[in-house]
């Protein structure tokens, strides 16, 4: 195994660059090193001006998503040896504006998330002294998969629909809406319906399926979206059959 590997890192410094450029750095090639280790090596030893996001380095915080050799990936879970002999292209997440180097502007995503009310919505408040709202294992299984989302935005980066139409609310937001819609304790499905059946909602999705491929947590946002399309279609039919009844 070679001693080192080249990381071809995208640099963009808005005060001097008109557009991003690539810069090569040689980093040690160690069996247990991930791309993020390589970036930290660059930051600590080679060029302290390199900017990128990271936090937990264990696939939980969702901060270190970047394009590695053209594919959206968590850099803390992408081993250098799997991309040897290199050079490994490390670029900012696709489909997002680049603020600096590998840092993207996530403002659009953060604005979209709360639109689907990703929290438990109740018609009535249950007082705390009444105890827990119990669920059976089957009820938990209905939504658990969708609750694993870490908001890493890899799915937005993989989605050509979002790339072409940034108004599309996007895979993670819809999967999170489903996470609460399918929760037996939640009464917010009707509230989320208006957002989800908007043209920028589920119907924007053309089922490319790449969001599911990119997801590091097996959330399957593509599945969530298609399931919701069926729900939305049924709700629409119901509203014709019993107008005013509502979902």
């Amino acid at each position, binding site marked *: 195994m070679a001693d080192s590997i080249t990381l071809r890192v995208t640099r963009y410094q808005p005060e001097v660059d008109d557009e991003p450029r690539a810069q090569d750095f040689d980093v040690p090639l160690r069996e247990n090193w991930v791309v993020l280790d390589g970036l930290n090596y660059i930051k600590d030893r080679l060029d302290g001006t390199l900017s990128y996001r990271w936090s937990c380095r264990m696939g939980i915080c969702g901060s270190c998503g970047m394009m590695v050799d053209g594919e959206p990936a968590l850099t803390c879970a992408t081993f250098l040896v799997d991309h040897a002999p290199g050079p490994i292209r490390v670029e900012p997440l696709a489909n997002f*504006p680049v603020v600096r180097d590998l840092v993207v502007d996530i403002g659009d995503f953060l604005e979209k998330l709360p639109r689907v009310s990703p929290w438990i919505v109740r018609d009535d408040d249950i007082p705390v002294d009444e105890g827990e709202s119990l669920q059976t294992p089957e009820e938990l299984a209905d939504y658990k998969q969708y609750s694993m989302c870490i908001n890493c935005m890899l799915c937005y980066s993989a989605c*050509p629909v979002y790339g072409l139409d940034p108004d599309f609310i996007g895979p993670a937001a819809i999967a999170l809406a489903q996470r609460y819609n399918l929760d037996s304790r939640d009464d917010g499905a009707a509230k989320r319906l208006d957002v989800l059946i908007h043209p920028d909602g589920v119907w924007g999705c053309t089922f*490319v399926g790449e969001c599911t491929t990119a997801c590091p947590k097996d959330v399957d946002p593509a599945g969530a979206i*298609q399931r919701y399309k069926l729900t939305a279609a049924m709700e629409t039919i119901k509203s014709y059959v019993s107008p005013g009844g509502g979902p």
Partner: protein
Amino acid sequence: MTGTGTGTGQRAYRPRMSLWWWARKRSYTLFILRELSSVFVAWFVLFTLLTVWSVARGEERYEQFLDFASNPLVVALNVLALAFLLFHTVTWFNLTPKAMPVKVRGRRVPSTVVIAAQWLGFVVVSAFVVWLVVS
């Protein structure tokens, strides 16, 4: 390149997607071909309607339709359309379990069973059509 405000007083670089984005990756290309297959599905619907219409209009019109249908260009188009139709069917069947998680007695039916059930339906209907045409 477009510079936009980021709220930090600096301009962000907003990359544009290439018109050829779908050629960049195999899965994107397959997706575009799947979308394109809808055009051929529409063509087969039209072709079937034309068949029914010409049959209803009597023997002479039906003979004319048969002449049209045996034109090498139409045959070539139909062969291409059939290939796309099969591709459409295969992808449709494979994607169905994603949209319809089937539950039996509270348990999720595995995707493979849902896909297999659709193929079974496909074979039964195809066998019926073949029987109808041959007999």
